[in-house]
């Protein structure tokens, strides 16, 4: 096979071709430039950084001990409000998301323009932050739990609808084909063919969204949309640091409890 010829051909091999090497260099350069530019824009003031540990220590000192007495007085009720906002908001959001999920799934809805319309709704609701929705609904309905609930519901549409439509698109087409071949009407194809295939994904993403919404509902009070965030806002404005500490501890407790509950239920369902 091999030549007896002594001439050894040194074939060159490089991982990247010249064009690729130039492209990579340009990307690196752009990254470095971006970092440098960002740091300049942020305008870091060195004095404030040096000062930070002292400030933090001071704040913590003021926060200690947490104002336990304030919990039953006002924090508890506000916390429950937040949980209710999250739960009702999730239920409403899921109900609004389901039709769009079905419309966005290409295998369920074979009309491209409807897919795009539904996807537009899903993308826009997801891209508008809950806080922005909350500001809007506070302006419409006035401050309180209703505004918060609607903000949560509307922002959830995009998340739930998108993941639900993806779950639908990942269903196996065989059973669907079999039901169609038997002359089943569309609604029955959905309830017998699609639903059993997506229901675990559906419940799991509803729980996941509820978990997220519990955390989002807490912040909503800062813009006057009800819940424990309002208690936090009040305490901050009045410099009642011990009370702030209590609110933060309560929030931490709820978030951990929600996480544990979701993990437990998920295991049971799936």
């Amino acid at each position, binding site marked *: 096979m091999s030549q007896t010829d002594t001439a050894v051909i040194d074939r060159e091999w490089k991982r990247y071709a010249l064009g690729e090497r130039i492209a990579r260099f340009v990307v690196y350069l752009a990254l470095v430039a971006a970092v440098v530019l960002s740091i300049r824009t942020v305008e870091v003031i060195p004095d404030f950084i040096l000062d930070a540990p002292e400030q933090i220590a001071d704040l913590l000192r003021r926060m200690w001990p947490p104002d336990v007495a304030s919990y039953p007085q006002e924090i508890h009720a506000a916390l429950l409000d937040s949980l209710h906002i999250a739960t009702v908001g999730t239920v409403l959001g899921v109900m609004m998301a389901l039709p769009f999920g079905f419309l966005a799934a290409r295998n369920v809805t074979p009309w491209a323009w409807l897919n795009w319309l539904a996807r537009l709704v899903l993308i826009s609701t997801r891209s508008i932050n809950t806080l922005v929705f909350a500001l809007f609904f506070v302006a419409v309905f006035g401050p309180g739990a209703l505004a918060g609930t609607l903000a949560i519901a509307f922002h959830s549409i995009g998340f739930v609808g998108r993941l639900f439509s993806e779950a639908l698109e990942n269903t*196996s087409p*065989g*059973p669907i*084909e*079999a*039901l*169609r*071949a*038997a*002359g*089943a*009407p*569309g*609604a*029955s*194809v959905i*309830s*017998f*063919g699609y639903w*059993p*295939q997506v*229901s675990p994904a559906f419940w799991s993403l509803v729980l996941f969204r509820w978990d997220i919404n519990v955390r989002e509902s807490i912040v909503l009070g800062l813009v006057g949309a009800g819940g424990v965030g309002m208690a936090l806002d009040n305490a901050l404005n009045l410099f009642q640091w011990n009370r702030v500490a209590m609110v933060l501890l309560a929030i931490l407790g709820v978030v951990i409890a929600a996480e544990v509950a979701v993990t437990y239920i998920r295991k049971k369902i799936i």
Partner: protein
Amino acid sequence: MAQNTDGAALVIRSLVKAYVRGKPVLNGITLDIASDGITAIIGPSGTGKSTLIRCINRLVEPTSGEIIFAGRNLVTLNRRELRAARRQIGMVFQEYNLVERLTVMENVLSGRLGYVSPFKAWLRRFPPADINEAYALLETVGLTPHVHARADALSGGQRQRVGIARALMQRPKLLLADEPTSSLDPKTSVEIMTLMRDLSAQRGIPAIVNIHNVALARRFATRIVGLSGGAVVFDGAPDALSDAYLKQIYGGESWLDGHSENDSD
């Protein structure tokens, strides 16, 4: 019952299907299917066996041609009429196509979805007659102990039995089977084909079966149709299927050495 000519259950005329324009997979198929017996369709992979069977109930839309069933041309039916026609055509699939997360009973009852309103189906309120028939069918296919099991808990052979029960639940006038044994071992394949032959004979339902296995086709079919290059190249009784025809259908001859019984894909 059948208003069409000379008692044929199904008449296919000049059926053409081209997925890509100008490249037809089926090249003008014309077939009459008698009102009883099993018609086996054999042919190499990619020759349009599956397409042919799927054109009959329009899971694949034919490009041109006529398919006359129960006195109507299926090709020109609108969606509503097509649904009504499909209720009378049972279908069995290679991959069973059961809804995995539903029980055996629910899968069998899903054969009645064309007759039960979506709301009642959702509530699982099927007419008592359907439920009785489902139990009887499950008894016939030997799955009584598994009625409440989920479909994904069954073996391949058991799943295909559910598939057959579901198709017969439609009380069909025609049974289509697309490679019903290709995912099964040889022993189970024979059991499934025996079941299909017996049930088809008992209930007087003609069946069209796509099959890869020439030996099985010879053993169970009353008629064999050989497809090659999108056209019918053999049509006759199993005894008439000589090696010369097999050579013409599948091409080559080295695989014919000894017996033609052990062909597989």
